């Protein structure tokens, strides 16, 4: 089997989407492929975070232990990355992780990554571009959200919806957009109800702009 399908797969991960595909074979060389049975604990809260996991099949549940009970707050599925920043800093894991279903991952250890960076710094430069773009993109959406919120303050529901009606390439941003749209429709519904019951109250306008 050629290397191309693996490179194509790697490019599906948001972290590697924008980067020069020429550096990806080098990255593939230092990644390890691992399989875990469902239920395997991958790491615990407080562990030293020293590897990044790229989910290729199955999923990873991120949870916190609270006494005897567990609070699962997120699932990472195929094409998602767990602990991408563990490569860059040495902070402990902020939560625990468990395999859900038969889990197939690529593991990139920090040490391997840093050695690769020494041999081929260009990978780091490419990664830098990728992360910077993501920060920009996310910040841009947050700014749009802020503009939309200002419009809501002025009860301009239509323009607020317009501001936020876009599809995002990022799952988290997409979740933000849907949450916003749901919020607007819930508030509108409620406000109309109140209006029918009582006389409309004035919304305090933000006059500082």
């Amino acid at each position, binding site marked *: 089997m050629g290397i191309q399908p693996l490179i194509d797969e790697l490019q599906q991960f948001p972290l590697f989407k924008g980067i020069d595909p020429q550096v990806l074979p080098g990255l593939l060389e230092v990644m390890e492929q691992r399989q875990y049975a469902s239920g395997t604990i991958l790491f615990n809260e407080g562990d030293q975070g020293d590897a990044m996991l790229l989910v290729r099949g199955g999923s990873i549940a991120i949870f916190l232990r609270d006494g005897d009970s567990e609070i699962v707050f997120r699932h990472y599925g195929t094409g998602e990355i767990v602990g991408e920043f563990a490569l860059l800093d040495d902070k402990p894991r902020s939560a625990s992780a468990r395999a859900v279903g038969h889990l197939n991952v690529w593991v990139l250890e920090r040490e391997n990554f840093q050695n690769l960076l020494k041999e081929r710094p260009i990978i780091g430069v490419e990664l*830098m571009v990728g992360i910077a773009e993501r920060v920009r993109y996310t910040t841009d959406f947050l700014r749009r959200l802020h503009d939309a919120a200002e419009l809501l303050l002025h009860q301009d529901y239509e323009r607020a919806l317009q501001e936020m009606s876009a599809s995002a390439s990022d799952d988290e941003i997409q979740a933000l957009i849907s949450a916003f749209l749901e919020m607007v429709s819930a508030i509108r519904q409620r406000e109309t109800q109140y209006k029918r019951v009582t006389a409309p109250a004035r919304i305090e306008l933000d006059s500082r702009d």
Partner: protein
Amino acid sequence: MTVTTLISYIIILAIPVFVIYILQAVDLFQTTRRRILLLSLGWGAVAFGLAYVANNTLLSLLVNQAGLDRAEALDQIRRFIAPVVEESIKALFLIFLIFQPTFRYPVDGAVYGFCIGIGFAVVENIFYVNNSPNVNLSLAVTRSLSTALMHGTATALVGLGLGRLRRTKNRFPLFAVVGIAAAVGAHIVYNNIVNSVDGIILLLLAIGFGVFGVTFIAYQMKAYLRDEKARMAQVLSSQGEGGVAEGEMKTIQRMGQIASGLISQLNESVGEENMALIRKLLITQANIGILKNNLSSGSTSPRLRKAWEEEVAEREKEFLEIRKQLKGSVYSFFQNVFGSEDEAMWKWVIDDLAKTDPTMIHTFDMFMFQTGMAADLTPEYIEQMAQRLKKIEIFREVDLANLENLGRSIKSIEYQPVEMLFDQGVSGDAMYLIESGGIDIFSVSNGVETFLRTFHPGQVVGDFAVLDGQPRSARARASKDAPLIVLEMQRVRFKMFIQSRPQVILAVLKALGEKARFTTATVQENVRTLKNLAQGNYAEVVALAKPAAVSVTQIDAAAVAPLTPEIEDADSEISSAVGRQLSETFAKLASALQQNTPASRSAGQGVS
């Protein structure tokens, strides 16, 4: 079969096995292939058969056509014609080999030639022992060894000459002629004395010939290395035209150009694995040279000087370590071709490596040295600039020595009022630190400018541009009241700087990663806020609204000398600001909505 012949056969057959073993063990450049060694041996055996037929054909021609006496004709053939015929037939396979892509090195020709000669000698020796039933053991053995040595050395000389021919196509093939003449001459001498001298003397003569062959090969190697050096110098100099005193733009452009072929040329000479090591050596040596230039240039701060000195020491250690991994023969190749005493050669090598593999060479330092940009900076200026950079979030984790180095490339530029710094949509190529005056930001739509805001002295505009070069989201002009003075860091210089410094890349990645973590957390936080708003949990939204958070940068900025007001408007800071604004706005929205709820109006309190 007598014991004598049996032992003779064993020895005769042991010779090629031994030779193959030795050749593989001492393989100079690990470029010879066992398969080709065996094919060469085989060709030697075939060549014997062909030469046998050719010699007999010539014999019958001489007897039948020229009317020579058979014994006399046989003697003539054995003494003069056979050496020429045999050497020619043996050489055929070599001629084929030197045109193969796997043939890299003239000495390879000698090695393959030696094998052909040995293959030839094996069959000839078997014939000899078979046809001389009464010969004693010592004569059989000495004669077999001598024949093998003579044939091997002779064909090795031919191989060496032909190998050289491949590289010197345009000149008179002197070495090829000398090699072939030596081979034929030695062969003729051998055939003339072989039956008239004692076995031991014959062996001594053959050994003498072998020593001559080895000496000749060694001399050839030296000549070859000299030629290689001249050739490399030519390859390199033809691209290094114009020297080093070129304009800045040209220098940068040239650094981006693609392969000159130096690396592929070297690959051909010593093989890929050795080349990888040689490249490391070249890169290390090049960086040592660049750092020494830095140290000699004078414009530096104490911290930066120390960092450079430490790196030189570290790289020198690294150089010795790589050298240890290189085989002696390859290292001597390296030394001969890239001798460090030849400065012009080194200039070309560094230039070439910078072009073909810019990621490992300190091109930034080279560029600074060549353009003399930092030549008259004071240590104080260098230190101050680093302190200012340190306050920008993306450089937070980078150590001061590196920031001092990077800061040397920053240029002060003056813009007249309303002059444009950059236009919306154009790829971002620089970051600006405002010294005095202001920068007005406009969004442009259908050719109409809408004023957005003004940046003031001490603030940073477009710091992400040096990282990703994304299109500018707005237009920037100098404010209209006064001239603008900015410190400009160009993306191209920043890239040059970091590409050979993994530790700086890692430091930037670390700060950037934290930024990404933060924006992701802000998104998640806002998803929660939106859900609370949707569910009418207004009180919770108000309660969770954060007061203006103290960002990490502000803490760091307080730790270093406050040269400028806090940098709040750099790209890297915008997300924190947006996060805070969002939190405030949603709190306002929540409290406004809260007042609208019937419960609030009747009870004067929010429900949760």
